[in-house]
């Protein structure tokens, strides 16, 4: 672990001497080869939610969650690379909000820049919080520092490390570290999957032991009531596969920034396409541990191991309390794999759902599996990999924040014509500020139990309508600035209204919806979320179109390079066919289809 941290900061120092202008700091001087950006692209996205969350969903829902990859990511990644990258990269915009200003107007950019800046701060805060909570829960630092300080110590230590390497090396340092983190994550989890599969008897044994809907990604998808996600086919394909995933991969500056750092337009187009290849196989590294964790105890273990494991489980379930309150230990091992029961942080009682059945703390599936199978030594590597995933997620948010803050907020509204050196200094200051705010956000998440749900809600309200604005902007030259602004706002309002009028089954009105009145009940919160996105997207699409037709269009001459039909397509014939985005993209798409077919 120490070795890794030394390397992380070393890279920051090594790259510091190459940072001479703000362009170097924020865009890595546009000089990074496609494959490096591609890995960073994926690694920035692999935050806390990915490794822990996907392991958790794997344990809870089964292989169905691979839809988040094979439907919810791959098509959008191929689309952004093939169709949208030329406009982001070719327009010389330095950030996604800046593209919005070039294409539309100042107010659309301001809306996007501010909401994006706030979201990055909170997501990096959540990463910090989740990491500190995990370190505390697993007792990684016990014995080194007093237990009550572990949480605070972890937050400040990890914030300091991320600050160190971004402050010194800017985006290139973040990208280099993300590549290291990517390989570390794979190196840490691949042997886990290998030994885990060996233990439970391979994929066939998992299939044998779990219900069919958990081991087949398409079984029962025709109707919401016959699959474990509680989502119907239309909700899945339109909500997740189209609106949400395209909204994230095609418009979120956090990932686009990595592609913008590429050394040429062709490379920039290749970045998301290359990133799609490891993304396609990530389910095997992050979802399978969840499935294995559910299977493990039903397999007859040697008595010695079983009791050792009971001790581990008991030790761990003692602390999943967000507050540092001490919870009594849960002593028994239940038949739910190695996943411990969720414990109420305040009363210390095991949490029961409305039917009186115990609720399991699925978030611990992956970390517990690490402890279960890895001997000392490998365990260090596994935990380093886990921490690396948190840091890459946090660093991604911080680099996106400092760029948007400096270029889109500071340079546009606070101080317009300063020297480049001034903006470089501002960027470093924004890095410090961003990290401090993230720490603040992490503590905010700690002290309010519901804030996490509330944030998820806000993210979905802001993100859902975005893709319609970009889609119309890039492919319809008639779209106007007023229309984009009106569309974005009304899309968010539509999402809010839809959320207020519907509720997932079994939830109380409030943060989960239904706070106006309940018109419709969804079978799960996931279904509600997908449909909120669909509504918000459609409203934005309609409003933007109508307002566009009613307002004066911009002269076509101003839109060259920003809109598809007005941009000359230059095909570079010097690139051999196997390096062209179209062929690589088709290959990836074909592979994704095959995977869907294999696990149907």
């Amino acid at each position, binding site marked *: 672990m120490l*070795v*890794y941290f030394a*390397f992380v900061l*070393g*890279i920051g120092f*090594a*790259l510091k*001497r*190459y940072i001479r202008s703000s362009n170097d700091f924020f865009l*890595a*001087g546009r*000089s*990074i080869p496609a494959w*490096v950006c591609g890995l960073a692209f994926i690694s920035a996205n692999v935050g806390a939610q990915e490794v822990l969350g996907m392991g958790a969903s794997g344990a809870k829902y089964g292989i169905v969650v691979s839809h988040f990859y094979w439907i919810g990511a791959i098509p959008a990644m191929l689309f952004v690379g093939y169709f949208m990258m030329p406009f982001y990269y070719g327009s010389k915009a330095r950030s996604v909000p800046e593209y919005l200003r070039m294409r539309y107007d100042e107010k659309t950019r301001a809306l996007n820049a501010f909401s994006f800046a706030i979201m990055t701060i909170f997501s990096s805060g959540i990463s910090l919080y989740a990491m500190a909570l995990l370190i505390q829960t697993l007792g990684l630092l016990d014995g080194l520092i007093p237990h009550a300080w572990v949480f605070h110590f972890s937050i400040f230590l990890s914030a300091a490390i991320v600050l160190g390497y971004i402050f010194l090396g800017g985006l*290139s340092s973040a990208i*280099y570290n993300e*590549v*290291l983190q990517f*390989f*570390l994550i794979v*190196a840490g989890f691949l*042997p886990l999957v290998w*030994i885990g599969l*060996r*233990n439970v008897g391979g994929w066939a044994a998992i299939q044998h032991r779990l219900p069919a809907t958990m081991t087949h990604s398409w079984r029962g998808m025709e109707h919401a009531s016959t699959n474990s996600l509680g989502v119907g086919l239309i909700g899945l394909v339109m909500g997740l596969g189209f609106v949400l995933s395209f909204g994230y991969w095609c418009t979120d500056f956090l990932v686009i920034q990595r592609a913008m750092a590429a050394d040429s337009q062709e490379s920039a187009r290749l970045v998301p396409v290359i990133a799609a290849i490891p993304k396609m196989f990530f389910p095997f590294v992050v979802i399978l541990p969840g499935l294995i964790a559910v299977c493990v105890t039903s397999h007859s273990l*040697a008595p*010695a*191991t079983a009791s*050792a494991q009971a001790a581990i489980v008991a030790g761990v379930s003692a602390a999943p309390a967000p507050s540092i309150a001490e919870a009594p230990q849960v002593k028994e091992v239940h038949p739910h794999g190695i996943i411990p029961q969720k414990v109420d942080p305040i009363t210390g009682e095991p949490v029961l759902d409305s039917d009186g059945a115990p609720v399991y703390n699925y978030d611990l599936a992956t970390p517990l599996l690490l402890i*279960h*199978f*890895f*001997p*000392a*030594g*490998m365990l260090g*590597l596994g935990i*380093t990999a886990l921490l690396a995933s948190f840091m890459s997620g946090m660093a991604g948010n911080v680099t996106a924040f400092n760029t948007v803050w400096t270029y889109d907020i500071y340079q546009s509204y606070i101080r317009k014509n300063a020297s480049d050196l001034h903006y470089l200094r501002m960027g470093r200051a924004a890095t410090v500020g961003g990290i401090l705010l993230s720490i603040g956000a992490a503590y905010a998440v700690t002290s309010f139990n519901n804030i996490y749900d509330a944030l998820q809600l806000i993210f979905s309200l802001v993100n859902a309508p975005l893709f319609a604005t970009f889609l119309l902007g890039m492919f319809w030259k008639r779209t106007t600035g007023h229309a984009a602004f009106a569309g974005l706002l009304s899309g968010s309002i539509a999402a809010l209204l839809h959320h207020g009028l519907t509720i997932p089954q079994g939830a109380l009105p409030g943060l989960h919806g239904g706070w106006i009145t309940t018109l419709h009940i969804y079978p799960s919160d996931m279904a509600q979320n997908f449909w909120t996105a669909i509504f918000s997207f459609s409203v934005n699409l309609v409003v933007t179109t109508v307002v566009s037709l009613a307002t004066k269009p911009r002269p076509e001459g101003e839109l060259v390079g920003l809109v598809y039909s007005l941009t000359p397509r230059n095909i570079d014939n010097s690139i051999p066919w196997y390096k062209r985005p179209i062929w690589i993209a088709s290959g990836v798409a074909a592979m994704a289809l095959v995977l869907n077919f294999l696990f149907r």
Partner: protein
Amino acid sequence: MGLDVRLPLGLLFLAIGALLALYGLFTMGSDLYAKSMGVNLNLIWGSIMMTLGVLAAWLGRKPK
């Protein structure tokens, strides 16, 4: 950019791999590996990581 990312990547893997493999060598046949079903994961995975590290560092070395 002046630094090829494969070099630090290779060195990192080499260092971690070497640590793991050495630890694995010294703890061969110990009770430690009951957890991982008798497989000396440290030694095996450490060696694999070392090999990959050497490969990456060699590919990323500065052209002279």
